[in-house]
């Protein structure tokens, strides 16, 4: 049994404790989900469980080993399998087989046993055909399955999963959830951290963390009876409806005529975009939906003027489109945009765009202050903080402000709510709705349910081909993930 007793975490004596007196157990064969928003302390609990963080009070005991003791914790990690949020950061080896073998090699197992375990673990996660691949050639979902195989090869009694699906698209998320079910059926105890209630559907027990304490514990159906508390707990059941004023559409922003993009990969000609012919109007809110590999990022780069189309032509505001014309007119918000923040202060970082596009220093700072207020951050106090030490939601807002600051006429956003918790997602959706008053907004995503209520039109991208879909065909308030 993995038992947490009276865990209290307090970083400084003056501050409010992050967690106070949290106790629960994870038994073998049980799936326990820790649900909570960013900053609820769930990741710190995970670090305690692995013995990487000593709680201020209380402790974790794993099958008799005290995780507060360095030596015992090392012993206990032999039967604790850990899977982190981003598989790119968890993969050690240059070869799929070597990656799975890494744990068993560290345990000092004989070679035949390692080989047997590698085959077994890869078969379990469905990667047997990828034995000789290099991990960086795998998709995000496959990489995460590889990380799970690496944990399973150590024959753990428990699996500790820290937001294992937050970087994945719905199909890959389904695969991971199925793997978790399978591991539980085989008798593993599972501690699973998430902020997405959908991932908790099959859990034996759900523990909601809020304000440093356990706010709820029970099953999924019991949890659904407390819907009125969800806002307070930071749980999002449905994407809340975001109001957006309709604007009369007349002028044309983009006119794509038979746009195709092909590139060479090795000796193979790959069509990332085929014969795309669409018209997008000024101030329109467009959602483009598609799974990983459908050609979303290629389309985005084409619309941002960052790549040359192979065939066809793009007309932008009635003129031929080019990288030069896109400069300053098109604002592109990449996936995880906070990963390119660099300024000394938040204000300085946000002023980067306007400065590059020729504003004077005073004008640039003025624009930065204005856009920080627009995203709901105080330019005076918040503007002086360092952008490298912000929470996920705050950093995302700063990154958005960095694009709004040079007043682009088009805003392109790639998975703008990815890896955010409920309150962060809602804030970003509201912001984008607000942006569409002054700009054309195009959102590219694999979970369109979140944006359908605000969208004027929805397009579906598959295998490089784009087509418009009936907006009503997306259930407006569907449970996230139900569509797959």
């Amino acid at each position: 049994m993995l038992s947490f007793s009276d865990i209290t975490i307090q970083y400084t004596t003056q501050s409010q404790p992050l967690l106070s007196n949290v106790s629960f157990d994870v038994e073998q064969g049980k799936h326990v989900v820790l649900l909570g928003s960013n900053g609820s302390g769930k990741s710190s609990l995970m670090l305690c469980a692995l013995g990487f963080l000593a709680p201020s009070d209380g402790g974790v005991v794993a099958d008799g080993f005290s995780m507060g003791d360095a030596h015992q914790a090392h012993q206990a990690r032999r039967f604790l399998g850990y899977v982190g949020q981003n598989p790119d950061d968890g993969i050690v080896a240059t070869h799929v087989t070597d990656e799975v073998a890494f744990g068993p090699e560290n345990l000092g197992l004989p070679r035949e046993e390692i080989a047997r375990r590698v085959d077994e673990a890869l078969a379990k996660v469905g990667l047997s055909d990828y034995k000789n691949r290099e991990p960086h050639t795998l998709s995000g979902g496959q990489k995460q399955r590889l990380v799970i195989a690496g944990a399973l090869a150590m024959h753990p009694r428990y699996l500790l999963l820290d937001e294992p699906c937050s970087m994945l698209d719905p199909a890959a998320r389904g695969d991971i959830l199925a793997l978790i079910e399978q591991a539980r059926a085989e008798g593993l105890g599972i501690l699973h951290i998430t902020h997405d209630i959908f991932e908790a559907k099959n859990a034996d027990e759900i523990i909601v963390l809020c304000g440093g304490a356990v706010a709820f514990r029970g099953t999924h159906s019991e949890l659904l009876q407390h819907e009125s508390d969800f806002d307070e707990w930071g749980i999002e059941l449905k994407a809340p409806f975001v109001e957006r004023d309709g604007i009369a559409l007349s002028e044309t922003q983009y006119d794509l005529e038979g746009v195709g993009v092909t590139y060479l990969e090795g000796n193979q000609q790959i069509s990332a975009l085929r014969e795309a012919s669409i018209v997008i109007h000024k101030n329109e809110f467009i959602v483009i939906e598609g799974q990983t590999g459908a050609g979303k990022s290629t389309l985005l780069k084409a619309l941002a003027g960052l790549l040359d189309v192979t065939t066809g032509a793009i007309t932008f505001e009635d003129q031929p489109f080019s990288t030069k014309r896109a400069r300053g007119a098109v604002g592109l918000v990449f996936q995880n945009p906070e990963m390119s923040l660099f300024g000394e202060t938040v204000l300085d970082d946000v002023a980067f765009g306007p400065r590059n596009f020729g504003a004077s220093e005073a004008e640039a700072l003025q624009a930065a202050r204005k856009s920080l207020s627009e995203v709901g951050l105080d330019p005076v106090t918040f503007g002086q903080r360092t952008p490298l030490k912000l929470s996920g939601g705050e950093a995302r807002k700063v990154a958005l402000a960095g694009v709004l600051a040079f007043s682009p006429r088009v805003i392109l956003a790639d998975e703008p709510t990815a890896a955010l918790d409920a309150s962060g997602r809602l804030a970003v959706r509201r912001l984008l709705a607000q942006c569409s008053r002054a700009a054309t907004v195009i959102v590219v995503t694999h979970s369109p349910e979140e944006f359908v209520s605000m969208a004027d039109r929805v397009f579906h991208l598959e295998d490089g081909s784009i087509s418009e879909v009936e907006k009503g065909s997306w259930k407006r308030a569907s449970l996230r993930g139900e569509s797959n």
Partner: protein
Amino acid sequence: MQIPIGSYVPGDSAVHRADPRAKLLVTFFLVAALFTLKSWYLIVALCTVMMLVCVIARINVRTFLRMLKPVLWIGAFTLIVNSFSFVGGFHFILPGFMRGMFFVVRLFVVMGSTALITLTTSPVALTDGIAIMMRPLARLRVPVEDVAMMISIGIRFIPTIAEEIDRIILAQTARGATFNEGSLLKRARAWIPVLIPLFVGLFRRADALARSMDARCYTGIGRTHLRELKLKLSDVALMVVSGLLFVLIVGGVIR
């Protein structure tokens, strides 16, 4: 983005299958012997052997020549400086040209034979080979296991980091950054918005990676290995023959 270490061309020739340790040792003998050589005959002979290995490994001539590109200018410069004289007027000197050629050909054989290793050996096999050959150093308290692990992690993160650099460059370009305009200083400064997030990201990754390794009980001590390199008879024969030739050349028996 072009990845320099990705020069490995997978294949199943005898050269590909040879043990990485044997390949490293043979190359070492070859390079060392080259520097004691005085006669053209042997250099031509070694060149022929190298070309033969190329053919056996089915390495595309163009791929092979591309690997020599970095020393092309050094070679050309050496040749020109040696072939012409300004003393008593500008004129061509044949002995100088021959001396230059002698340097250049040796340089190309050195480059070519090391290129052959990286072309025919996967990075994994190469690090394994280097790690095993370094094992005696563990007696001198060199942390051989850890060094091998570091090299392997380095190789593992090259594509990830290349991707990340691409992404940050695109993101900053979209915010109006330019990288090839203005003075040298301005160009250098333009990279700050790329390098800072890159390093911040690397530190974050390093933390997460350490956690993932700790969680899988890595200590660097008492590890076993799934991949065990086994010397085949042919590998041993290769090493003995090249060793023998090396001794004979250095000893001046063959000249």
